[in-house]
């Protein structure tokens, strides 16, 4: 067992995955009997059986299997919480901190978190991870992570700022949406003022400022449009209000998160060229801002031309990143329900690969193409189907272990062979 771990190639190798159904993630038709070449951490070839297998390459026979880009979770909490309800292990909230926008989640990502391997076994290779707002409407800055085994988990620091402007924002801001918007506008105006004269903040804050210097400095790239701003809103009305913020702050690089009533204003979202990250299964009217929830939301948004990615938006076991493939599959099913609007299979695949990669500005992953990062998953069946699972996972060209804390528990109890020593002596 230990030998096997050490035998794992720690660096990228040359691999040829041959004979599988290759899905590039770019919404073109799958290549049956396709070949994917991996070398030096990059994809060096994608195509049919005519693609040459380099000499010395490890060949993976993918006959009867599917080959896809690694799944990119458009939002998640992977690596940021080991046990959600155990505060000592949960880095997503900081309700006792005086800081908000300045919070950078990077040091909170635990490369040893067991959630990384567990989610990886669902085919996830990259994920956006966000802090959660607690005292202010600004939650802080999230990251994009790699789910590769090892210590190099954070791929992109400060990938985005996250702000609450719906019901959560109203509550956090002091009790109403008007106050949330006031907080937001005040914070961004302070950022503009700070950018013009940082010296005014030498005593920690400007004389009439509400934000700490660190927080206001963190909002400068947001107001300048240099850092994307993820805005959590759900209702159609809130979505329009957020889009209207660009009349005052014209450079905002907006991404809408949640948007359960997005379908009601899909043309406006599309016209604003604002991408969205949705949790597509939610169809109950759980709150007064989400009365029109439906599993047709993603389909209607895509039909209107919106760039839609899927993500996990709440820290709740009922939805897990490793099931994003299934949520995408459900969107295909939604197209078959009379009156429902869903996605084609290729569109559905895109919402969990190239769409999230594009939203987070990672043009080098999310689809299988030459010179792309070799984030590649081989599946034992249709990757969106409930019964399928990865058989091989590559991240940056490195073959990943197909084990987790959960598979070790499984193997210990498989068959319950209670023999001559306690189970704790078996590993």
């Amino acid at each position, binding site marked *: 067992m230990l030998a096997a771990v050490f035998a794992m190639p720690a660096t990228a190798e040359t691999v040829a995955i041959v004979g599988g159904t290759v899905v590039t993630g770019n919404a073109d038709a799958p290549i049956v009997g396709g070949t994917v070449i991996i070398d030096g951490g990059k994809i060096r070839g994608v195509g049919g059986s005519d693609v040459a297998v380099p000499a010395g390459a490890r060949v993976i026979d993918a006959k009867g299997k599917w080959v896809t880009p690694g799944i990119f979770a458009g939002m998640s909490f992977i690596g940021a919480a080991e046990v*959600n309800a*155990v505060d000592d292990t949960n880095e997503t909230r900081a309700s006792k901190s005086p800081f908000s926008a300045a919070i950078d989640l990077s040091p909170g990502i635990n490369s040893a978190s067991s959630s990384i391997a567990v989610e990886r076994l669902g085919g996830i290779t990259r994920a956006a991870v966000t802090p959660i707002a607690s005292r202010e409407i600004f939650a802080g800055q999230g990251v994009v992570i790699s789910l590769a085994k090892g210590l190099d988990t954070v791929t992109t620091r400060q990938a985005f700022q996250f702000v609450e402007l719906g019901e959560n924002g109203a509550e956090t801001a002091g009790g109403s949406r008007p106050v949330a918007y006031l907080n937001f506008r005040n914070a961004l105006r302070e950022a503009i003022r700070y950018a013009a004269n940082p010296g005014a903040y030498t005593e920690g804050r400007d004389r009439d400022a509400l934000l700490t210097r660190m927080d206001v400095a963190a909002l400068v790239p947001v107001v300048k449009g240099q850092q994307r701003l993820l805005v959590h809103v759900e209702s159609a009305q809130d979505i329009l209000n957020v889009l209207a913020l660009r009349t005052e702050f014209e450079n905002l690089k907006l991404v809408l998160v949640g948007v359960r009533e997005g379908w009601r204003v899909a043309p406006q979202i599309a016209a604003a060229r604002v991408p969205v990250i949705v949790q597509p299964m939610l169809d109950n009217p759980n709150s007064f801002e*989400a009365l029109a929830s439906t599993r*047709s939301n993603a389909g209607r948004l895509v039909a209107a031309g919106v760039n839609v990615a899927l993500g996990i938006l709440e820290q*709740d076991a009922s939805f897990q990143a490793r099931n994003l493939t299934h949520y995408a599959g*459900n969107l295909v*099913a939604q197209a078959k329900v009379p009156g429902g609007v869903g996605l084609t299979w290729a569109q559905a695949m895109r919402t969990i690969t190239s769409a999230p990669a594009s939203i987070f500005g990672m043009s080098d992953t999310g689809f299988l193409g030459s010179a792309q990062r070799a984030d590649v998953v081989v599946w034992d069946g249709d990757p969106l189907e409930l*019964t399928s699972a990865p058989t091989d996972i590559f991240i940056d060209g490195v073959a990943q272990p197909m084990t987790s804390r959960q598979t070790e528990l499984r193997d210990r*109890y498989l068959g319950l062979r209670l023999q001559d020593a306690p189970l704790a002596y078996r590993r």
Partner: protein
Amino acid sequence: MRNLTLAALLLTAACTTTPRPQANRPAPGSQEVLAIPADPFPSTYRAYPSVTTVIRNVNIYDGKGGKIIGGAVRLENGKVAEIGQTVATPANARIIEGQGKWLTPGIIDIHSHLGDYPAPGVQAHSDGNEATGPNRSEVWAEHSVWPQDPQFTRALAGGVTTLHVLPGSANLFGGRGVTLRNVLGRTAQDMKFPGAKPSLKMACGENPKRVYGSKGQSPATRMGNIAVARQVWSDAQSYKRRWEDYTRRAKAGSAKPTDAPRRELANDTLMGVLNGDILLQQHCYRADEMANIIAMSKEFGYKVTTFHHAVEAYKIADLMARENICGAVWADWWGFKMESYDGINENAAFLQAAGACTVIHSDDADGIQRLNQEAAKAAAAGRRAGIPLPPELVWQWVSLNPAKGLGIADQTGSLEPGKRADVVLWNGEPFSVYSRPEVVWIDGAVMYDSADPNKRPVTDFELGQPGKGDTK
């Protein structure tokens, strides 16, 4: 003797909805014998009209482990009348051609909070946990059920025909659970499954000790959980003995009505469990704690029907099989709290392999819509671990097994002649992510039809709201 009285009343409840006497009228000259009413909130459910229907050339999972390819089922008078490769087709029957489609028994969720935690989930709707004392056996989940909860309709569109609504797990003794037909009514009583036994929800582990420990009261530890629960059971035994003693003396003419013990509603519920009239549904995550619970149940002489959540059931699957206790589990929930840290995807499969009664439950207003998918995931994980799990066997996890756990397996949970016609027609193989229910029958009545917007229920709450009547 009180047992007999209660049993008689329960039988009455199953046959009629007329008010029943609160006490046995004495013969002239003898003393009145007071008894505890078995069902003061009786079901007013009635099946909706149905037509004789034959679904034919359809693939079938019968819910009791069988599969028929290209078979047929006849629904008649609200019951399953016939199932086989072919069935008799009366001239007046509605005929549904089922090529490429699948037919299953309706899904039964043994663990739900619909109605008690309705949508929208505002504080004013938070009616699932009477977190004011560790023993709240006197509360009944049905008295919190809001029959206008839109979540019932989403579950229906997911093929759920019966669900068991439980109080939450803040308390060691959360109160009574109720089994509902998933047919919207004006009252919770309109939805009650006629004759289904109530349950008592108990919880072990983190929740009760956290809720009360944080208030500086007992239980604050796992050992406190067991100690408090044992005292409650011991007191319930005393209560039971007082009633038995009174009843014996009253029947003999030596006790007056004023000698009857004071009704204690919490103890009524607990006594019902001790007498076997109320099923015990036990929330518990860890293997070692489930073993403690089993030992406690033996000390006080009651039966645990089902362990709910049972994230570590796979560690004691043999014990659960031996004790004939069902395990109602999620497919893959884990890590959200410490006691769920050891969750594995093969949990259900390991239970099945050990011969234990295996159930997939939701405990969730979203998960309840896709219990077929949860079962599919759990089974796939088991198969990869080498456990043979044919799909027709796995369907039992969401139909016949939860029916067993609720004591209603004689009425529903499988497609067998004489059982309630609780049936789902799927537009594809129901363990596929690409399949959805097309028609849902409850007692033979079409309660959902994906092709007919008029068969897509809209609750009062949704009227006049955006999204009303949309495909959800």
